[in-house]
């Protein structure tokens, strides 16, 4: 199975108008997949274009920036540092504290508009659990490792973008890890399994499954399912997810390698392009 990235995104309409039209059309029985092509022109096994930059913040121990379709996610890692509050500190290892937040301006909906909510607390929790199983926490007793992820712009699949960004930021920080983590979501849209659901497919599809995978070990570190899938559909989706994870891992490694192979001038130009 081949998962590839789409190079052009058609952004012809004002997103606000698109949304209103879309809601109306969906009621009239709009198809999310026409002639094997999805709303944004992708095939079922095609990812949106992904771009990863590592080491984008000067004062964080590690950082990363991910553009994934219309998603924009910034991750910063601080630590190991003194654990606060102190009574949380464990003598057996570092505490991992992930915080996923959506910027108040990240989407048209009310996401992130009133601080942390049930959804962002849940995502912070599942991210923490995913990273707990790869980080050698026992090397740093009585400390905490803080991972901050800020969603600057959202278009479906931000938790996967957040996990990919956080993984690169953790490696950039030098936190000892067993493995890198890659994440991607697959979905069931119009009775068909597709990889990397965009917002409309997520909202109006039949099922949505974010998966985080250990890049080398192929262990499943996160698996959530919203909707109903048959066994065959699940297998098909996981197959997509595994090959997408391979591709994403390659992008993550590229981003980290670029920190050392690019000159200061090139870095500056990259920053200006963002």
């Amino acid at each position, binding site marked *: 199975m081949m998962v590839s*990235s789409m190079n052009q995104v058609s952004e012809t309409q004002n997103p606000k108008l698109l949304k209103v039209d879309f809601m109306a059309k969906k009621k009239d029985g709009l198809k999310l997949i026409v002639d094997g092509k999805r709303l944004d022109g992708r095939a079922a096994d095609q990812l949106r274009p992904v771009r990863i930059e590592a080491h984008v913040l000067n004062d964080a121990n590690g950082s990363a920036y991910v553009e994934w379709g219309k998603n924009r996610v910034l991750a910063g890692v601080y630590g190991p540092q003194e654990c606060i509050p102190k009574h949380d500190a464990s003598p057996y290892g570092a505490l991992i504290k992930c915080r996923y937040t959506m910027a108040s301006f990240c989407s048209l909906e009310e996401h992130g508009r009133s601080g942390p909510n049930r959804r962002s607390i849940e995502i912070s929790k599942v991210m923490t659990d995913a990273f707990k199983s790869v980080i050698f926490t026992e090397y740093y*007793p009585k400390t905490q490792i803080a991972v901050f992820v800020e969603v600057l712009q959202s278009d479906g699949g931000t938790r996967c973008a957040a996990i990919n960004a956080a993984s690169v930021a953790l490696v950039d920080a030098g936190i000892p890890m067993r493995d890198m983590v890659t994440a991607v979501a697959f979905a069931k849209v119009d009775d068909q399994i597709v990889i990397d659901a965009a917002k409309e497919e997520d909202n109006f599809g039949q099922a949505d499954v974010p998966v985080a995978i250990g890049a080398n070990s192929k262990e499943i570190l996160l698996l959530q399912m919203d909707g109903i899938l048959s066994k065959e559909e699940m297998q098909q989706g996981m197959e997509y997810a595994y090959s997408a994870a391979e591709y994403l891992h390659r992008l993550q490694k590229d981003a980290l390698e670029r920190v050392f192979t690019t000159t200061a001038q090139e870095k500056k130009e990259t920053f200006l392009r963002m």
Partner: protein
Amino acid sequence: MDEVHASLSGVQSSGPQTGVTGSEVRDPKPETLDPRPQTSDHNRIVFPGDKVWSTPVRVKGCYVSGEATYASVLSQTSGDRLVLLRGFYDPQPGDAVIGYVSDVKFSGYNVEIFQPYHAFQSSKELRFEYSLGEVIIAKIKEVSETRSVDLEYPKQLKDGRMLNVEPFKVPRIVGRKNSMINSLKDLTGAEIYVGANGVVWFSGKNSSLVIKAINMIREEAHTTGLTERVVKFLQAETGIENYTPRVDEEPAGGSYSRSPGDAGSGSGEGRRYGSRDRYEHRERGGDRPRDRGGDRRSYKPRGQGYRR
């Protein structure tokens, strides 16, 4: 993006795999369409989870799983060595660290060493006293199971500036056989101490030049031929000609580097930081004799009826 996309089509999906040790070495020579610079097998960047050696080797930045060694930290292979490109300070007994007194307690001093570890200098065997905010360099005596650090042989550093650098770049700032640090001292005339915790302390007129040089080392820490470039830079800045980096025969590890005054005086040549130094503090005017309070008029040597 195009190139990456194209190269991907040559990759055969391996599908789901299970087992922790099912990792593979990253192909050092990727597809021809790959735009990345080609790295040779002897000098490749390894990422957490990548297999480094097929034999179990227990070194820093790696972990052993089954019969193979995997990277746990972003590093670069260099022959059969592994050079860390990222990492945190791992306190070891014998390391010299620089910090400031962050709390004065009855039994000693808490020292802020800019690490997640709690450092403590006991005043039990101390002949001098320190006050809040004073900068000291000390040796690590002991590291407890929960990474609390006990210090010994403190020495006050006065009238200087501190600069925090990444601890894994400290070997580059010191250089092979102290060559880098000696060049910095000789060409800037500054007194420089480097703590293993990544704190560089320096004093002298040329401090802005020292900062520039250290930032240059930080930015280019992963490159080769750095000492020559730093020396060239410093020569251009100071106008000093015909300088070759001075190397010390004694190993750099453990003891912190000496000041240029010590090295030139003859008596200081080759001397390691040790117990003898403790008695020279007063001459240097750094540390103050400990105030034992009360109406004690003179110091008595220990063990002759002296009680704390």
